[in-house]
């Protein structure tokens, strides 16, 4: 069936379109305009609406062992949802697999990346992803604190052998890319190290964090994995040391692409009597000057949330700030991790400055194709706060009202009040559609050209940007209408996007031996097979470069 989407204002920067035009879709894909426009079987009038590709979230913790542990740790949070539907901020958290799919779709998001899947928890992550309706999903698999990689680096093994190991891990776990989280830091923490920087060495291995990052960056590049190595830097959240870590890692890109996650959490200096200040302007300048580097923000918004991270060392340190006062820390093989509840208070100088630093970075990084829209859900805030963040970026009067309400003394520690920039619709489309698709190598989405997957979000323009982006007028997923007037009307299942890659036979045999001898585990257990997920089409493969 040929469907004509008629008369909408199409904002499709990937194809240089920003104006009123018709779109056509057939069998789940966008197609070229037929020579006879009236030949469409169905026409939907979108005049007066803004039409964009479905939005893509490149970094949101939506599935897996740690996310589920957070649910287990915070039943009170979920209870708030079930007893007061539709009322409070907590009720919009998107806490279950079901809610995750529905809430994302209602905002016009159609692809979401779970960025921290441990290789041993890959099946768990994919089981949860399979239960998330509507949206497509993808995962980044975590390496960089694992015994084998560190041993291979220490023993001077070839780049090819290391790449084979990385390829095996990506293929087994059905990931789309690779992330490293405080490279070496979790391993060091297991040896009772409590602070760890880029040039520190992991005890016993004698390998530095920098060596691990650089090795993985090269392996990902050599394997032609489209998404560059996704790096969670050292010293997250530590005033002074965090911005030093970000600066050193930005400088370490050295001509190859590198993605730095939730950069806001590294924008902290030590000035002032509280020893906490903004390094947002300085980090933005460093990013502007280094075209190898992309970043996502990890914006903080006020309210109760929970931090979920495979940075075991920093999560352990964060236990002291847990609110409510409880946390779970994991000593897994390789990364481990932690779940620490957090209540970002609008009345706190620290939390308010964190909020401001995120916005400084959003607004001072000049190229919207190198900065990505995230709250590091749920670490900075639940993804359900996105509509408010769109409003903060697009409307400086909204920003001024928020700044006005900050605790006394915060405004003079941030350059935010002087920033007049407002994101345009086109820049929003670049940041949340065109550019994420390019960064992930998923060329079938993020744009509205012929051949693209018909993931389309349609918004009713409004001066209230939170209203506009909070409830899409229509959302089409694979050409099917799934949201109308901000409410879900159909809930088909999407797929997990996985990289088309194969493991080397020799590495396969080596890893069978290694996991058995080193850990008493079967290497086969790491392999995610579609049949275990109970979906007709659990995966869609994405090609390497």
């Amino acid at each position, binding site marked *: 069936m040929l469907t004509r989407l008629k008369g909408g204002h199409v904002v499709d920067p990937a194809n240089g379109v920003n104006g009123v035009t018709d779109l056509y879709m057939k069998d789940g894909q966008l197609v070229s305009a037929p020579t006879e426009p009236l030949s469409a079987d169905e026409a939907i009038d979108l005049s007066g609406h803004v039409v964009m590709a479905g939005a893509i979230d490149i970094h949101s913790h939506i599935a897996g062992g740690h996310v589920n542990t957070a649910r287990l740790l915070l039943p009170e949070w979920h209870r708030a949802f079930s007893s007061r539907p539709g009322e409070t901020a907590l009720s919009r958290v998107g806490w279950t697999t*079901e809610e995750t799919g529905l809430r994302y779709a209602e905002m016009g998001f159609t692809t979401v990346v779970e960025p921290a899947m441990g290789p041993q928890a890959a099946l*768990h992550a994919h089981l949860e992803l399979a239960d998330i309706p509507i949206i497509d999903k993808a995962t980044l698999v975590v390496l960089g604190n694992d015994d084998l990689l560190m041993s291979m680096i220490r023993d001077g093994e070839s780049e090819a052998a290391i790449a084979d190991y990385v390829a095996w891990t990506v293929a087994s776990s059905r990931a789309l890319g690779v992330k490293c989280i405080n490279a070496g830091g979790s391993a060091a923490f297991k040896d009772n190290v409590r602070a760890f920087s880029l040039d520190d060495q992991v005890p016993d291995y004698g390998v530095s964090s920098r060596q691990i990052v650089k090795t993985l960056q090269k392996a990902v590049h050599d394997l032609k994995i489209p998404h560059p190595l996704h790096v969670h830097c050292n010293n997250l959240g530590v005033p002074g040391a965090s911005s030093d870590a970000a600066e050193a890692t930005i400088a370490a890109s050295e001509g190859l692409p590198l993605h730095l996650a939730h950069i806001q959490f590294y924008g902290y200096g030590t000035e002032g009597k509280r020893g906490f200040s903004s390094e947002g302007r300085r980090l933005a300048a460093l990013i502007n000057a280094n075209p190898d580097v992309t970043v996502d923000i990890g914006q903080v918004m006020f309210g109760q949330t929970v931090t979920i991270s495979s940075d075991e060392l920093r999560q352990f340190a964060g236990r002291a700030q847990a609110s409510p006062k409880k946390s779970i820390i994991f000593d897994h093989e390789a990364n481990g991790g932690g779940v620490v509840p957090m209540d970002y208070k609008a009345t706190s100088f620290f939390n308010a400055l964190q909020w401001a630093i995120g916005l400084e970075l959003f607004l001072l990084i000049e190229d919207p194709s190198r900065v990505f829209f995230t709250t590091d859900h749920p670490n900075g805030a639940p993804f359900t706060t996105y509509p408010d963040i769109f409003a903060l970026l697009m409307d400086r009067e909204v920003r001024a009202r928020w700044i006005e309400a900050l605790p006394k003394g915060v405004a003079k520690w941030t350059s935010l009040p002087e920033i007049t920039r407002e994101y345009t619709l086109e820049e929003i489309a670049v940041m949340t559609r065109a550019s994420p698709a390019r960064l992930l190598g998923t060329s079938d989405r993020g744009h509205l050209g012929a051949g693209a997957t018909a993931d389309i979000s349609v918004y009713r323009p409004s001066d209230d940007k939170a209203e506009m982006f909070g409830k899409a007028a229509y959302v089409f997923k694979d050409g099917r209408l799934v949201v109308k007037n901000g409410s879900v009307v159909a809930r088909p299942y999407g797929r997990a996007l996985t990289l088309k890659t194969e493991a080397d036979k020799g590495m396969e045999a080596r890893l069978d031996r290694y996991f058995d001898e080193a850990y008493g585990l079967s290497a086969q257990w790491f392999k995610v097979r579609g049949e275990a997920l109970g979906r007709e089409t659990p995966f869609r493969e994405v090609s390497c470069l």
Partner: protein
Amino acid sequence: MTFRPASVICRLGTESDDDLSTQWIDGRPVSTAEAVRAAAEHLAASRLPVLTGDFNDISAIRAGLRVAALAGGVVDHEGLEAIRPAIEAIRDAGIVMGAPAEIRRRADRVLVIGPDPFEGQDALFEQIFAVAPDIGARTKGKTREIVWLGASEPQRFAKASGEARSIGCPAAELTEAVGIVRAALAGRRFADGPFEPGGARALAGWLVDAGFGAVVFKADAFDAIGFEEIAGLVSDLNARTRATALPVFAGSAFGSAQAATWATGFPMRVSFGRGAPDHDMELFKADRLIGSGEAEAVLLVAAGEGRAGVSSDAATILLSTEEPPAGSSVKVAFRIGRPGVDHDQVALEPRFGSFVAHAASAPDPDAPSSAALILSMIADHLAEMAAEKGAAA
């Protein structure tokens, strides 16, 4: 907002090759479609359907949750009471816990508390204790030391790589003993309790001097307070050195609880009686609801051997690996395949600390359907009924 979770199994049995020997209504052999329809109608007509049993395939609990959501029922697991203290302690107070694979490679000192955690878990024991720690600057190459608090002899650990000794302690005093070690660690005053004079301080010092300590215990051997006390000890130790807890879980309840947690936000017991999932450990206990007669219909999954006995007066839908008992309250019965034997199974693997997909060990095209498939068909039928009702209204 109505909760409408995943349809788990997409493949449906076809009528043509239907086998009349694996499902019954009131003891009479019927087709799969008839039995599925009867089960769905029965659940839909009931004011409070209760789903329970052993759900030892994650696909089965995923499908079971969907049935309960569509029928407005309660979901429980027969092993839930055994993991309840762990769940309550973990969500009240948190924990620092480790994977067995990491403990194998890193733990130079292991404190075992209470009854043998490895009873029926030989593979897990072997995984952790067959070798000495071989990584970590503070732990590599050390002889592993094991202390078993609460045993008269180190029995099982005689076979472990390393040196084992025991400290006797009556079961009823274990929680107190852990509290005493915590007091000794903190430099607070304490009574000796079950320890010999100086014993508690020595044990605390031994733990603090570990490079990477592990505290291992049987998860269902402690109440929530005991569990929390052990987690507290591990937390305290981490202020000074590294230590991690390993509560050992038996059975499929913890895996099922995890699936319930991602699907509903809660680890079970969950009710969909009000639409959105509600959680209450006491209120939604299957035994209580069945015993009191509040449950108008019961759906029981019995995948283990010899579990087909049904004690409920409520009309029951039984999914069992065995033939249903004659003359019971069973209304609709399905013979199901054995998970992991006749069909694939997804289960929590203790050695892995996560889920593993096991291929059927003896796949047989003539074997009865999996519980997951039957439950999915019932859910699909319930969804159709709801859609028809919606269309009619």
